[in-house]
């Protein structure tokens, strides 16, 4: 394989990783947003404080992911975004409301704070639902027919549940005392819908897409592939069992969050395996959709220099705000 031929592959991997980091990192932000209405007024401040220093950078991964789609796979960008025109609009409205509510809620009049809290919840919900719907439409290759909307709707419901679970696990790690106990209860509550959703979607995916069906059920790949659902199941089970143990409130408070990250990563690997080498399933392969090698090389230079730097200062930022969330103040 020549370097020019490998370039689109490199960018597909980059885009995938950017999207994965977005889904995990903004996933816990959105999840915390979805749990907002279950918290008391004082607890809401802690919830926000736990994600306040990070959300901006987290959302930037979405810009990078969609930017790579735009820049490296312009044809796919056109197809995907015009197919998803309405859910994209709704997601953007949701992300806008969520993003500005972060700032408005602490700066506006005290009497307006509950309004911004509600908008924060509504924005998080709208964004998560639309993302789930878009994922569903994307996996099924934008298929037409009665079963496709049901499939997309199922994912639209399952994804917010997964975000809420991830958000609850984040809070178990970042909070203490009564709020932490509540977070454990929220995690238990969100666990079942996530498991049921994942099983249903795993069963339905090969049914809505023949391409995926053929990829999954061929020997000997099937045996190697079984690792993915097995590892996912073990991670989910481990997280659930740990929620009942006292140790999750102290030394092992980070384990549920890490286990759920593993679930997201495994799901992503499964998805990537299912649709490769397509960027739009059954329509456009990675190579058909890619920009010219010359343009990709120019961007690759920038990527090689800046991505390590981004990784370094992201780690730095997480270290600065390491440990339990404390009150945020401008000084």
């Amino acid at each position, binding site marked *: 394989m020549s370097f020019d031929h490998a370039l689109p592959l490199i960018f597909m991997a980059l885009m995938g990783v950017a999207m994965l980091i977005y889904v995990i990192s903004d996933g816990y932000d959105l999840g915390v947003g979805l749990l907002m209405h279950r918290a008391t007024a004082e607890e809401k401040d802690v919830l926000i404080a736990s994600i*306040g*220093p*990070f959300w*901006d*950078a987290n*959302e*930037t991964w*979405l*810009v*990078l992911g*969609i*930017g790579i*789609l*735009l*820049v*490296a796979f*312009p*044809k796919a*960008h*056109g197809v*995907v*975004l*015009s197919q998803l*025109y*309405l859910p*994209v*609009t709704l997601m*953007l*409205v949701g*992300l*806008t*409301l969520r*993003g*500005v509510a*972060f*700032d*408005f809620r602490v*700066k*506006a*009049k005290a009497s307006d704070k509950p309004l911004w809290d509600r908008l924060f919840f509504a924005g998080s919900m709208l964004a998560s639902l639309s993302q789930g719907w878009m994922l569903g439409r994307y996996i099924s290759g934008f298929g037409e027919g009665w079963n496709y909307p049901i499939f997309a709707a199922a994912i639209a419901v399952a994804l917010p549940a997964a975000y809420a679970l991830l958000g609850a696990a984040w809070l178990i790690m970042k909070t203490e005392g009564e709020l932490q106990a509540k977070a454990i209860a929220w995690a238990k509550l969100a666990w079942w819908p996530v498991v049921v959703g994942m099983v249903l979607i795993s069963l339905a995916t090969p049914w809505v897409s023949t391409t995926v069906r053929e990829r999954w059920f061929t020997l000997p790949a099937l045996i190697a592939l079984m690792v993915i659902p097995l590892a996912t199941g073990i991670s989910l089970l481990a997280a659930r069992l740990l929620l009942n143990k006292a140790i999750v409130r102290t030394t092992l408070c980070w384990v549920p969050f890490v286990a759920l990250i593993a679930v997201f990563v495994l799901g992503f690997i499964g998805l990537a395996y299912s649709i490769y080498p397509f960027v739009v399933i059954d329509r456009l392969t990675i190579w058909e959709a890619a*920009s*010219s090698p*010359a*343009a990709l090389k*120019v*961007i690759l230079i*920038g*990527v090689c220099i*800046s*991505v390590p730097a*981004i990784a370094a*200062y*992201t780690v730095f*930022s997480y270290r*600065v*705000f390491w440990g339990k969330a404390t009150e*945020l*103040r*401008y*000084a």
Partner: protein
Amino acid sequence: MDAIILARMQFAANMTFHILFPTITIALGWLLLFFRWRWLTTRDTAWLGAYRLWTKVFALSFALGVVSGITMSFQFGTNWPGFMEKVGNVAGPLLGYEVLTAFFLEAGFLGIMLFGHGRVSERVHMTASFLVAFGTTVSAFWILALNSWMQTPAGHVVVDGVFEVMNWFDVVFNPSFPYRFTHMMLASALTCSFLMAGLSAWQMLKGVAETSAPKVMRVGLTVAALLIPVQILVGDAHGLNTLEHQPQKIAAIEGVWHTERDAPLLLFAWPDAATQSNRFAVGIPDLASLILTHDRNGEIRGLNEFPGQHPPVAPLFWGFRIMVGVGMLMLAVSWVGWWLARRAGWSADRIPKRLLWVLTGMTFSGWVATLAGWYVTEIGRQPFIVYGLLRTADVAATNVTSPMIGMSLAMYLALYLGLILAYVGVLKYMAEKPEDLIENDAPSPSKGRNAAALNEGSVA
């Protein structure tokens, strides 16, 4: 309505909303560094109070800029799918570099800049604040490079309708880029300085922030008074550059329907596209020729030389006059205001009330001038998306229906209107908070970690 008009309206609405906030944050990032530095060197709590309030303004503006910027990254594809297919080899890397070198830099260090006090040393905090300010400026660099390239394309070659890059230096430093970049940086500084002067004037009228408001007003008025003359010179150079590369834009701005010598500078007119003439024209003889060609008999090419290839006249004609008019008003107010405030010793109770009211009224004058200027330059590029080479109509989405675009447009407009009202309302509310309330969230000496970090900073 036509899908392409709706798509343009939607994109314009989003751009209009977006540009308001970077226009503030680009300059405010640097001015915040100045406030912080003054507090650390003078230990005058007035500077700390100013820093606190304006950090909040920065955080809020930044959040609004980020969310509308995300929307924009999607709208390239939803509204102009053909743009990336044809121009992707040029626009892609420029946008890619913007995200990689600037967007991440700003967003990554913003958390530390806003909430890092007491967790990092003053030196690290200053570095983080510097990187945020630097990031916003670099971001503007890339975006304006692309925008300028769309106005005055260079360094490329078109192969089978697809643009390929020949020379990246020529692409980035295309003929209009140095002018546009400088013009926009200055616009940001002026928008921010009038916002500072206006909000401080409002605080003085309300009798709050007696110590910090005069200091902030002094910074605002001084920056404005110094930079407006520079902006006028840069604007003139930018205009001459446009005359050279985009003559029909200038013809539309000046309302020159037919090529003429001794062109008058029209102060007022009603451009009439149907009759290709101006009604009720009031002008100063020969002045347009003099300004544009530096010769009172100089020839200005009229719109008649560009059939089917020139922008609509009325929005350019009016937009330009609004920009220049507001700019002249800002010049007069900043100079007179600086003089009057200086005579009053920059003291909150001696500065004339009338001046305070005028400054309050002009709080958002920078927004008006900036938007008017952007409208002139962007509408002035029509009917092309890449000037002279690619028409907007040829890259529009063909598979998205008008009702769909119309519906999302209505949704965006409602959202943006609500958010602008909320933004202005919250700025007013934050400014009216008494200063001692601002002091209350100061790190108390009992919290050893915070105090230690501050002391360390004062030594450094």
